[in-house]
């Protein structure tokens, strides 16, 4: 079986990204402010693309716990989600969860924007 594992450490302007097959969860946590987010997100987009190589029935959770992200990151986060949407096999049960504080209007709004653009199951949960 092809390994899926992913681990990118947090930096002052990029979030931590972890995926382990153990819990089938990709979590993206921290703040994302790179001026050109392409360099950072290309690894994630490639990961999303590679999901089409996985044929067996399975679950996949995507957890976002972002303090904040800039417009360039927003563009590539969307590209990541759109790539994922295209790449996942129908027998993958997926859930995207957008964690945020219930008073953080900005991040709630950002979550809703992705929710409207993406067809995968997408829920916003308050921490």
């Amino acid at each position, binding site marked *: 079986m092809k390994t899926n594992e992913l681990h990118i450490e947090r930096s002052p302007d990029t979030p931590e990204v972890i995926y382990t097959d153990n819990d089938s969860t990709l979590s993206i946590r921290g703040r994302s402010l790179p001026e050109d987010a392409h360099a950072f997100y290309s690894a994630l987009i490639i990961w999303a693309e590679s999901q089409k190589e996985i044929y067996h029935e399975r679950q996949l959770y995507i957890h976002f716990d972002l303090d904040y992200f800039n417009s360039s990151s927003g563009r590539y986060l969307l590209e990541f989600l759109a790539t994922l949407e295209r790449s996942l096999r129908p027998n993958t049960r997926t859930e995207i969860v957008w964690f945020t504080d219930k008073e953080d209007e900005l991040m709630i709004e950002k979550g809703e924007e992705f929710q409207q*653009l993406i067809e995968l199951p997408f829920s916003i949960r308050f921490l």
Partner: protein
Amino acid sequence: MKGANYFAPSEIMNRVNHSSFTGNTEFPIWFQPRQQGCSCAQFSPKALREAYRFYLSAIDDDLCLNYRGPFLDDITSRIIDISENTIAETKGLSKVNRKVSFLLVECFQNIIKHSDHNELKGATPFSGMFAFRNQGQAYVINSINPVKKEEVPFLSKTVDMVNSMDSEALKHIYKRQLIHADLSEKGGAGLGLIELARRSGQQLNYRFTDLDEMRSYFHQQVVFLDSEEMKSEKLNHLDSTYDCFNEMGRSEILMQYKGDFSQRSIIPILDIVENNLLNPESGQFHYKKVGHLLIEVLQNISKHGKQKSSKKSGVFMLGRQEEKHYIIAGNVVGADERDGLMMVLEELRDKDENQLKELHKQRMKEIMFRDNSSNAGLGLIEIARASKGKLACDFQKIDDNSTFFSLFACV
């Protein structure tokens, strides 16, 4: 002065096409100040021009940072991060870095030593100022801080004494002070001043002005020169710093910055603002909205700023008006970029919150379906959205190839 009186219904692209873009014509683009009645009293053409005025006043500075906020976090280390970029870019000298860092820290500690505890914690508005400038091989640190009137004679005497000594004498007195450690507050202050004189190798400039019955302002300037030929006498910023101090007070500006806008500089700037200038009491997530606006504005400069050598140069200032924050930013752009910016801004003009939201969604859809490989003005759309229409822009011609682009946004 309300922005409403200055609304300029300009047909932007017409002006560009008819090449009326000559001279330093007023060229403001306002976004809906009329409909929404911007509650930010600083919102005026004069404020919009502040960016250019500040840019010109610091034209020779590779870096200029004026700070009038509380000192909650270790600001020195952030300033050192920013200055290290500037210094490393121009000289690559870590020795200079270390000297300048030492002087910055020592100056900060001197301010803190004399300041009222409540002021430092931001409980009352901070009444002092800290300014750091780098011009080529000269590094100048200015500070203005309140001291008790009874401390004035001691401080004057100490600085005069330190200034009259050569390096051997300073070394001697430093050791003596250490051994006979008079651990009183005064002793500590004396030691700090001796260290500043020793490490800078220059005379300390100072003066006192009245603050109120109990306190005076202690103005101090420390210079470090990375060149034997330079003369520090030419670098007297006591007056200009005081002017700036007063101006910042009047306009309630907390921080002004001219310098590099690459990512390595933007992140420490953002940290200074987030950790010190945004009062969490003004709503837990208000600071986030300000930070959001700020990062987009700073990165917009970085993206469009005309590059001087490998540095991206521009200015920004952050002010506070009651519960609101406002950001004024500016940078030099070339003719092509000017036209590109105008086109994007024209599309944003007069759009309300919902229309901006729609436009954003449309752009995001284009990205999804790969119709558009660029960021397509996403940053400016975010700026317009974050400021909820309290956004104004201005272009001032510098010469045929360059224009100064200013932006005012309020959140």
